[in-house]
């Protein structure tokens, strides 16, 4: 998209960004129907930065992330440019991809029980990853596995190396999965709702751990979540997705204080927070659009309280940048 190219060059953009996605679209094509899950997404991530992609179910946030790692099934048609650390992900062949996944980019998931292999111990799974990618000896790989379990703060790490995934509690399993993901010191960590299935007291532990590891290892992190509170705890920047588009993007503090776009504003108003007792919750009427056709004008217009005729005319709508570092796709937002 042309508007991306004339974005003012910031300090971070001067060097090669860790992630650069341009006009990425994903269609799922089956015999019965085509679903336009992602419709022109631009993502930039500097190394050492944490970006939260925030959105409700069906907004395309997980699909965007899987496209970044080329984890989508064959019937998904991906277009656009995807670069990680200057390398073109779309052009990679299967062999290159296998080296790329795990060593440059690693991913953690919501449900560790399905991401870990049930018939191997935690230690074996970490050691296997390290030997595959870095060609370490068995003993060196075992030593790395122990180091990693200590890094993710698993108590009595030595004993836990011999544990199978089912022998661990939910929180420890999630830590073990993080250890596997970090085994080869990836530059980029993709996290797909990694704390959603955890209890409140465990969720905060895992969030703080991820934040500490990110600072320690200097990783870039893209963190997908539907929870504004989680974004508030971990993000540097937030991108809000709706109907396969990023409708607003900006620094986390500004986004949580005063979103520019009516959709994140509605989302913030609909999130139950302390001190709202007895007040009526603001809701967003209606439901997200069907993605059988890619939206051409503003996809939020049918539900928007501030809709006006211009909303159904302007294509895109094109991104506005009222202040540096903030972007919103809404005709009401001033700025070029």
């Amino acid at each position, binding site marked *: 998209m042309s508007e991306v190219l004339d974005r003012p060059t910031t300090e971070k953009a001067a060097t090669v960004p860790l992630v650069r996605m341009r006009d990425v679209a994903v269609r799922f094509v089956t015999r019965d129907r085509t679903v336009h899950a992602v419709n022109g997404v631009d993502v930039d991530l500097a190394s050492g930065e944490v970006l939260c992609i925030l959105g409700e179910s069906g907004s395309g946030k997980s699909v965007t992330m899987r496209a970044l790692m080329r984890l989508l099934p064959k019937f998904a048609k991906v277009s656009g440019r995807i670069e990680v650390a200057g390398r073109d992900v779309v052009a990679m062949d299967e062999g290159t991809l296998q080296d790329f996944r795990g060593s440059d980019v690693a991913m953690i998931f919501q449900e560790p029980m399905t991401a870990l292999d049930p018939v191997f111990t935690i230690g074996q799974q970490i050691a296997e990853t390290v030997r595959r990618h870095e060609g370490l000896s068995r003993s060196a790989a075992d030593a790395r596995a122990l180091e990693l379990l200590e890094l993710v703060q698993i108590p009595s790490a030595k004993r836990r190396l011999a544990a199978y995934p089912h022998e661990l509690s939910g929180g420890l399993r999630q830590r073990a999965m993080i250890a596997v993901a970090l085994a080869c010191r990836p530059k980029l960590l993709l996290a797909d709702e990694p704390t959603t299935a955890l209890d409140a007291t465990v969720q905060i532990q895992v969030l703080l751990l991820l934040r500490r590891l990110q600072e320690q290892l200097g990783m870039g992190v893209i963190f997908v979540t539907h929870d*504004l509170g989680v974004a508030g705890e971990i993000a540097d920047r937030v991108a809000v997705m709706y109907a396969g588009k990023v409708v607003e993007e900006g620094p986390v503090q500004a986004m949580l204080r005063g979103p520019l776009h009516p959709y994140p504003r509605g989302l913030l108003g609909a999130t139950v927070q302390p001190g709202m007792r007895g007040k009526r919750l603001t*809701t967003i009427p209606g439901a997200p659009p069907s993605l059988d056709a890619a939206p051409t004008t503003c996809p939020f217009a049918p539900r928007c309280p501030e809709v006006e005729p211009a909303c159904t005319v302007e294509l895109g709508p094109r991104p506005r940048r009222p202040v540096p570092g903030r972007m919103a796709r809404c005709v009401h937002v001033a700025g070029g």
Partner: protein
Amino acid sequence: MSIAQSAAMDRGGPAQPLLLVQDLQKHFPIRGGLFGATVATVRAVDGVSFSVLKGETLGIVGESGCGKSTTARLVMRLMAPDAGSLIFDGEGVGQNAQTGGLPLKEYRRQVQMVFQDSYASLNPRLPIEDSIAFAPKVHGVRDSEARGRARELLAAVGLAPATFARRYPHELSGGQRQRVNIARALALQPRLVLLDEPVSALDKSVEAQVLNLLVDLKEKFGLTYIFISHDLNVVQYISDRVMVMYLGEVAEMGPVDAIYDRPAHPYTQALLASRPAMDPGKRREEPPLTGDPPNPINPPSGCRFRTRCPHAEPVCAERKPAAAALGGGHLAACHMALPGSGHSQAGRLAA
């Protein structure tokens, strides 16, 4: 369906709690070994007592494995408790009518439940209108009347009957299905509705719609709710009183403001402190608690929270703390809240 009607059913008067739960207990044996002997016991619910007043919303919070869903199933009598009693508006549940009791069928007509999984709790082969009309027909309402009531209820939960009545569950979104479940729960004109994580599977914008609906319906039909959730903000929003559970026991109970503003139990304090800040300027540096909740198989002796408690002392391992009254119906099962318990900080919290 009117408030006058539900008042007519009110036998015990306004001061009589709608539901009194006493010493409810449910243990699940784990069998193993050669002869299938019991090798361990899951103490899912272990001596839980509480009351639900007429017209209030009691929120139950706790982490997974704390027994909140088992409590709901026991209250609904979807499973029989090992011990303990339920008294519904002054009448013992499950006893026969001659001895002043309430037969189970009649009790279940007055107490209904909404589950978390909106899809699994509807029959996929019945149009939603028939799902809603099913229970009234079982209870002897004529077919045409039951359908008419189903349509009224669909309208009451915000689904236009003309559009939705003949649809099947798979044709609806998650939020719409949860509205159908709520309509079905109301079809028997219950007095108590058990809501077990009713909004946990929904997106935030839909969650707000359903919470608003629940507030409206409560007022319109004069309902009483038991609202179970792991989401502390949602429980604070909807509840009048809150019960905090930990490993099958009640840790703390009281009016919503007392629990959220002056939590006395260290577990409640940690749980509240674990909520994400919503403000990047106030990020936490250390987690309030370490470790996961222990397994409810063979829970710790004495106070079950002592293994994660920052204030644990020898007395906590020796004796189970009794519930200390902190005034205004605020109870905390902690030695620190109970003067003379032997804990070095005992009575510090007493009002």
